[in-house]
């Protein structure tokens, strides 16, 4: 770990893309759960509904977290 060198490189963009990939995976799970909700019995419906809520919560959190990464906190000393 270098002492004063603070250049984040391409890491913020890569991390933002990683968050995107993760929310996509979450979206897949939600789609499957929603399908189950539509086609299946009432017992699992509540589970699937809570999954949908969790998805929207995480998606919103991820989008909120992504914005600070648009610019580095401190510009590195070059």
């Amino acid at each position, binding site marked *: *770990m*270098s002492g004063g*060198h*603070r*250049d*984040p*490189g391409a*890491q*913020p963009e*890569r*991390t933002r893309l*990683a*968050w995107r*990939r*993760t929310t996509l*995976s*979450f979206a*897949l*799970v939600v789609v*499957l*759960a929603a*399908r*189950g909700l539509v*086609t*299946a019995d009432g017992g699992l419906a509540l589970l699937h509904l809570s999954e949908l809520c969790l998805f929207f919560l995480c998606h919103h959190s991820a989008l909120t977290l992504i914005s600070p*990464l648009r610019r*580095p*906190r401190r510009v590195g000393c070059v």
Partner: protein
Amino acid sequence: MIRQVLAALRLWFSPHRLRAEGPTPDYRFSLANERTFLAWLRTALALLAGGIAVDQFLTELRWAVRTTVAVLLLAGGALCAVRAVNHWVRSERAMRRGEDLPASRFPALLAVGTVLTALLVICAVLLGWAAP
């Protein structure tokens, strides 16, 4: 055991207290650590999706086989999610303290569990456990 679990939970949910420890690592290392966390989380989500899909789509399988496979996948997903956040936080702390990154048997266990689940499904398909 309970105390360890509670300590881990406290650590997960107190990122600001973690920041008080040691010097701030290079941004690249912290962000790489975060990407590792997200990769583990995607693994967990893929296992969740697999478990739900097995339950919903493999209706030809006998109920016991289908449920076992689905539960194995879903449980694996839950464990990966726990591993994701725990390893992320402990790695960040290790970087701040200048220690080695935490060693874990979890990747080996996950690989073995995946192989076992695959073998189970292979047997179900080949030996005709599909018939309800």
